[in-house]
């Protein structure tokens, strides 16, 4: 590791870190749950078979855990990191507190939790960690996701 903190030279909007924004509402519908489950190749009757799901532990169709990825949200706060030529998802950390159910109204809030840099043998990487929480109509958080997006300079 270099002794100079690479963050010193990286430009981004520090004022938005930790500021929570409402980024949208979503109604969980049977059509979208079944569509999402089919797109993955799910066979679980809890996601696909209304009658079986009604008799199951949740009393209705539930969404697969990764269903949150199909919820379209507003972009949310952007730290406007000025670095690199390309970006990729580096990691994802999800906490699933309870399943989303058909008929739920989901409210999403997002924040940029942190921006940090790492310098290794492939050069400097700049990570942006976004935290999104999804709550249902009972104000219970059902899913929390921390996504880490990495920017790198491929021209180096």
């Amino acid at each position, binding site marked *: 590791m270099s002794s100079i903190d690479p963050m010193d030279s990286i430009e981004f909007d520090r004022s938005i870190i930790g500021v929570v924004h409402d980024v949208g509402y979503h109604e969980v519908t049977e059509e*979208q749950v079944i*569509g*999402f489950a089919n*797109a*993955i*190749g*799910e*066979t*679980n*009757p*809890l996601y696909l078979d209304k009658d079986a799901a009604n008799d*199951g*532990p949740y009393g209705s169709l539930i969404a*697969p*855990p*990764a269903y949150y*990825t*199909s*919820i*379209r*949200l507003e972009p949310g706060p952007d730290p406007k990191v000025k670095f690199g030529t*390309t970006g*990729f*998802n*580096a*990691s*994802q*950390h*999800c*906490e*699933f*507190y309870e*399943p989303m159910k058909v008929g739920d109204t989901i409210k999403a809030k997002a924040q940029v939790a942190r921006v940090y840099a790492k310098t290794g043998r492939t050069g400097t990487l700049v990570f942006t960690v976004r935290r999104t929480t999804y709550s249902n109509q009972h104000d219970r958080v059902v899913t929390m996701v921390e996504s880490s997006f990495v920017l790198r300079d*491929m021209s180096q």
Partner: protein
Amino acid sequence: MSQVYFEDIQLGDDIGPLVKEPTKEQIRSFVSLSEASNSRFTSEEVAQSEGLRGIIVPGNMSMAFLTQLITDWAGEKGQITSLEVNFRRMVEPGDRLECKATVTDAETVDGQNMVTLDAFIENQKGERPVQGTAKVILSAKE
């Protein structure tokens, strides 16, 4: 669906494989439903302009495959409570993906039977483009 119980679990138990061979068509259908609007997943041109060989499989889609492995195994009475994955390499359409997991810990905490898994996707070259850990609560036999 089959049902696994906490008493049945031993450290080192292998789960899977759940085999997936995502096609470009399946990627498009996933992306059309997904928040991932980036066209590197749907346009060869855009993907190549970003220095990729072509369309790639979205990380969210790989992650969804892993959750399927885990929730299928946990059964109706089990519940996945967390999943943490690192995206280490590109996954491309046509790759043969084996979603697998291994039981690394099993303990009862505050009355909950918590099982920890190493969960990963292995491709046809033996690489692990997606690797992580998951926690699952299993029910006990009555």
